């Protein structure tokens, strides 16, 4: 019997996956087809969603991309019923496809089951070797040995900090007290990062198993998953998975027949970016305002309700069962001197193939952007990648040969962060980009430290006046001065890294700041107040498309005659520029 899997992660659903699923179900019922229909998570090829996989009787897999309900119906009739695969829509198969390049340089550990198993079924997770790691650990290893394996593997925290997981666990293990907590940080707040959402939606059990191993290692009997409220699907899947694990006796009292107890609770965040910071997250679980506090004492000694607490993020936990099963050496064999294993990057922005890519550390930016991501959308010029979200920075295309590891990225002034990689092309203004991030951190500042609360506000005001065309001489120096003050006079990661987007763009794109301030020009033609739109008379064919697209009726002209833009009514939205097929609209 054939099996059909439909990708229904949030990305699949938002691309219309549910309608595709319904169409397939409808066809099955209508034609009374004998198949197994399943849902699965996301395999990372978000740019091809909705994805549908057909696995035939000989266990051959055919992955279809961009499957609309209409296409799904044809796949059902031609492939499923008549055994004639619809070749032109196949994106992955035993034979070569143009999408193969997306996977060639990837090495999947965290995403090993994503898009393959049904995330709602614990049995499917067990069938691919799930829960073997925790079973083995409880039977054969002491907690100290587990910690030792983690330390040897060289796994570093994937949430952004990059601290050695084994060492972190050791601190918590050694902390005094019998009541300890383990927390999974699923408060993925960095705009541009979505690997944690995808992992939770596509393979929630791997995260639960990772937490169990961590809990065993540090000696915790209670765990919390702090998940963003913006991820309803992830929360639902987690709740379901916890129920399944409880029913199997993998959670609760005497798990796997041992004397180990462990239970997990879910806490939904309430919308505060700063809660991704450990001490703020703890305050939030305690039901308080999520404000960071001064460290030390570190959470390993004094965390949740003042008890020793260990916090790791989703991706870190998802790595752990693999490390136990394959050994620390296998993990440490991948990557560079100081950064071992793989890292999941969320590729988005102006990239041709956006999605999740898990690559060995040490790969270059160019390899990710061109080989995996397929280069820039629409054939434009690659300008920079933004890494690490609002705490990170922009790395210019000229540094594309840079090997990705914690140290190398830090040297550029950006950070690895949680792995968001937003690709920017020549139409992105770097000053505007810096302003965008600053407005984010400014809004999300909890207000505790003066320099973060007021300093970011002042920096934002300066950036606003620069992009409005009112920049002054000395603004760049003022920005730098404020940036250093904020960096050195705040207590948590949010404040300390808030100036990074500004500092990196100042470092690599100083000419853009100068053009805005001195010439009142935006080289990327993006800052609206610095632009004027006009129509080139000799290129205009009078097709009226621009006039129809204009939201404020600022464009006049008869059919087949040259059109004109009324500068006074024009709101500089750029619609005419986008719609013109003859490149007759100029922005300057």
């Amino acid at each position, binding site marked *: 019997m054939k099996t059909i899997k439909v990708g229904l992660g*949030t*990305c699949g*659903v*938002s*691309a219309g996956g549910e309608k595709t699923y319904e169409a397939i179900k409808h066809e099955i019922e209508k034609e009374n087809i004998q198949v197994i229909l399943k849902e699965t998570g996301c395999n990372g090829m*978000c*740019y091809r*969603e909705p994805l549908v996989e057909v696995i035939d009787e000989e266990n051959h897999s055919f992955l279809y991309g961009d499957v609309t309900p209409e296409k799904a119906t044809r796949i059902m009739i031609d492939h499923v019923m008549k055994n004639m695969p619809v070749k032109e829509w196949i994106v992955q198969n035993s034979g070569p496809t143009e999408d193969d390049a997306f996977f060639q340089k990837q090495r999947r550990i965290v995403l090993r089951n994503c898009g393959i198993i049904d995330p709602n079924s614990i049995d499917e997770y067990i069938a691919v070797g799930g829960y073997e790691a925790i079973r083995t650990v409880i039977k054969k290893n002491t907690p100290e040995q587990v910690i030792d394996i983690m330390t040897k593997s060289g796994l570093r925290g994937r949430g952004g900090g990059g601290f050695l997981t084994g060492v972190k666990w050791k601190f918590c293990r050694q902390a005094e007290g019998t009541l300890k907590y383990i927390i999974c940080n699923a408060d*993925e*707040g*960095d*705009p*541009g*990062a*979505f690997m944690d*959402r995808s992992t939770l939606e596509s393979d929630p059990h791997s995260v639960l198993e990772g937490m169990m191993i961590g809990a065993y290692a540090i000696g915790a009997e209670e765990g919390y998953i702090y998940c*963003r*409220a*913006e*991820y*309803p699907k992830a929360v639902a899947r987690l709740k379901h998975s916890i129920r399944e694990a409880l029913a199997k006796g993998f959670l609760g009292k005497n798990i796997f027949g041992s004397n180990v107890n462990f239970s997990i609770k879910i*806490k*939904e*965040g*309430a*919308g*505060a*970016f700063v809660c991704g910071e450990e001490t703020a997250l703890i305050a*939030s*679980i*305690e*039901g*308080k*305002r*999520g*404000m960071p506090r001064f460290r030390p004492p570190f959470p390993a000694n004094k965390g949740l*309700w003042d008890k020793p607490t260990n916090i790791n993020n989703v991706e870190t936990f998802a790595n752990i069962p693999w490390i136990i099963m394959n050994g620390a050496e296998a993990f440490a064999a991948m990557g560079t001197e100081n950064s071992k294993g793989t890292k999941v990057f*969320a*590729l*988005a*922005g*102006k990239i041709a193939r*956006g*999605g*999740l890519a898990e690559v060995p550390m040490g790969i270059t930016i160019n390899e990710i952007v061109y080989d995996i991501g397929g280069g820039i959308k629409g054939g434009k010029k690659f300008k920079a990648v*933004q890494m690490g*979200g609002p705490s990170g920075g922009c790395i210019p295309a000229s540094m594309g040969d840079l090997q990705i590891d914690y140290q190398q990225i830090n040297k550029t002034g950006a950070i690895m962060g949680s792995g*968001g990689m*937003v690709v*920017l092309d020549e139409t*992105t203004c770097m000053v505007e*980009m810096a302003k*965008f*991030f600053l407005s*984010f951190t400014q809004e*999300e500042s*909890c207000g505790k430290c003066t320099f973060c609360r007021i300093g970011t506000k002042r920096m934002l005001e300066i950036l606003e006046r620069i992009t409005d065309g009112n920049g002054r001489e000395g603004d760049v120096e003022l920005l730098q001065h404020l940036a250093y003050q904020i960096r050195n006079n705040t207590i948590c990661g949010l404040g300390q890294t808030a100036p990074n987007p500004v500092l990196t763009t100042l470092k690599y794109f100083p000419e853009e700041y100068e053009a805005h301030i001195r010439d009142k020009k935006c080289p990327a033609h993006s800052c609206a107040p610095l632009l004027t739109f006009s129509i080139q008379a000799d290129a205009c064919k009078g097709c009226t498309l621009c006039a129809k697209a204009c*939201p404020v009726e600022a464009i006049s002209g008869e059919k087949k005659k040259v059109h004109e833009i009324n500068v006074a009514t024009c709101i500089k*939205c750029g*619609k005419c520029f986008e719609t013109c097929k003859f490149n007759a609209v100029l922005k300057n």
Partner: protein
Amino acid sequence: MLQKEEIRKENTGSQFYDFKTELWKYQGEKGALIPLLQSAQEAYGYIPESAIDHISEVVEIPGAEIYGVITFYSQFRLKPMGKNIIKICDGTACHVNASTGILRALVDELQIGNDETTEDGLFTLQKVACLGCCSLSPVMMINDDTFGRLTPKKVKELLKEFRTKENA
């Protein structure tokens, strides 16, 4: 205001009941304040003053402190919201893929600004930082459903669809 609250109660009878049960179930568990507030918001669509008083009595945390928690988190509302909540994403990926154009289309269509509710009470518009759907940017959520690869045209069609459903 009270009137609206009563209407909500009628409409969301079972959820209102859920909130009460949550309160009854509370047995001094630590850190329950935020889940209780979430439950209140789920029931009423926002957190009315009366709910703050209820919660304060049960968990024995002063109302002022609860108010402090409410205002800290962007999820909580002290004013009634529209029937459908539109969250327009302005995360990095959406931002570089022209989410401002999508926001403008929403503002044009709904005739409301960020954090406002339409007069008919059908829609509330919220600009949010990132919905984690970056590879399908620009993206927005209407209630719990996510819509990707948006264009201003698609937004207008979606709103029309929702309106027709509401009026039917």
